[in-house]
């Protein structure tokens, strides 16, 4: 049953990314070149809706959250490496799956590169474990750090994102 549910949620995820242009090289590079802000705004919209929804669910104790640990140094290094890959490939680990489904052969090659990168990480893991231990603050979120209910942060944060989407980014780049 879980497997069928996974397939169904994945199909919706893939279709939304494809229909929204998130699996398009041109749209992704347009965002990274700060020319075409659609994909950045798509991500901000998903977060603005998601954050309020997740913390509303949490209020009813219905959110199956999965909080990743915050190890500052390791995450910054990881993000810098990821960002280079993002711009060089023009896809991310999820959008290359969708783009491959659309018949884009370069995206299939990005998946193969991804498998190689993941294998490389598995081999290098014993040497990199220190990066995960240093400056590790554990599974910390803004609500847990401030010790308040998540909605008190989620709602104003979502409002800021709406402001970014409809005022700031639009006026400057479109």
């Amino acid at each position: 049953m879980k497997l069928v549910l996974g397939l169904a949620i994945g199909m919706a995820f893939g279709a939304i990314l494809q229909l929204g242009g998130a699996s398009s090289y041109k749209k992704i590079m347009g965002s990274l070149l700060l020319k075409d802000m659609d994909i950045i705004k798509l991500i901000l919209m998903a977060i603005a809706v998601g954050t309020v929804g997740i913390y509303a669910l949490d209020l009813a104790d219905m959110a199956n959250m999965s909080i990743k640990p915050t190890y500052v140094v390791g995450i910054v290094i990881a993000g810098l490496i990821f960002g280079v890959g993002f711009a060089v490939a023009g896809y991310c680990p999820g959008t290359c799956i969708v783009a491959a489904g659309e018949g884009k052969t370069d995206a299939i090659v990005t998946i193969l590169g991804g498998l190689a990168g993941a294998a490389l990480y598995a081999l290098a893991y014993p040497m990199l474990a220190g990066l995960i231990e240093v400056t590790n603050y554990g599974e910390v979120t803004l609500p847990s750090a401030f010790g308040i209910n998540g909605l008190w942060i989620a709602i104003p944060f979502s409002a800021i994102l709406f402001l970014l989407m409809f005022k700031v980014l639009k006026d400057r780049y479109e």
Partner: protein
Amino acid sequence: MHDEPVLSWKVAGLLLGLLLIVATALVKPLGVSTQYVVTEAVALHKVAPAVAESNEYLNKYGEKGDWGVGYGWMLVLGMFVGGSLSALITRRFRSRANPSLPSMWQTEFGSSSPRRMMHAFTGGVLLLFGARLAGGCTSGHMISGISQLTIGSFIFGISIFASGIITARILYKRRLAS
């Protein structure tokens, strides 16, 4: 040739946010990059179980004696299927003149498919190395993580865009200059 998206960023972003809420209510938030490791762990446990078990990182994925695919892997398979179907239905499947070359890339770097493949492969290596070090990618760490207001996910999101924007400017310096 169709290359403009069918949905606006507003509608697609709203749907993605709603899907994230549904997924979090039913199972857990969305995520992709772990499945690259799961794929390798599953394959390696079939082909060379001794090698797989000797690797500290691969051993963290799945239970001993149960190296099948699970919910997360089916989700990624679903992304492939869902992307294919929506592209076929909206007549955007294989809409490029050359399936390996994005036209924007071609304008900057020429029409060499092997060169594009080099970029696509190298990019993929860096993406997954970075995603595994961070513990997630654009969906799991950035979209799902920031939605849960995870502090590390804000840091990851800022880092990938800072580095991605700088790299894109270096790659497309000719286009930006003109």
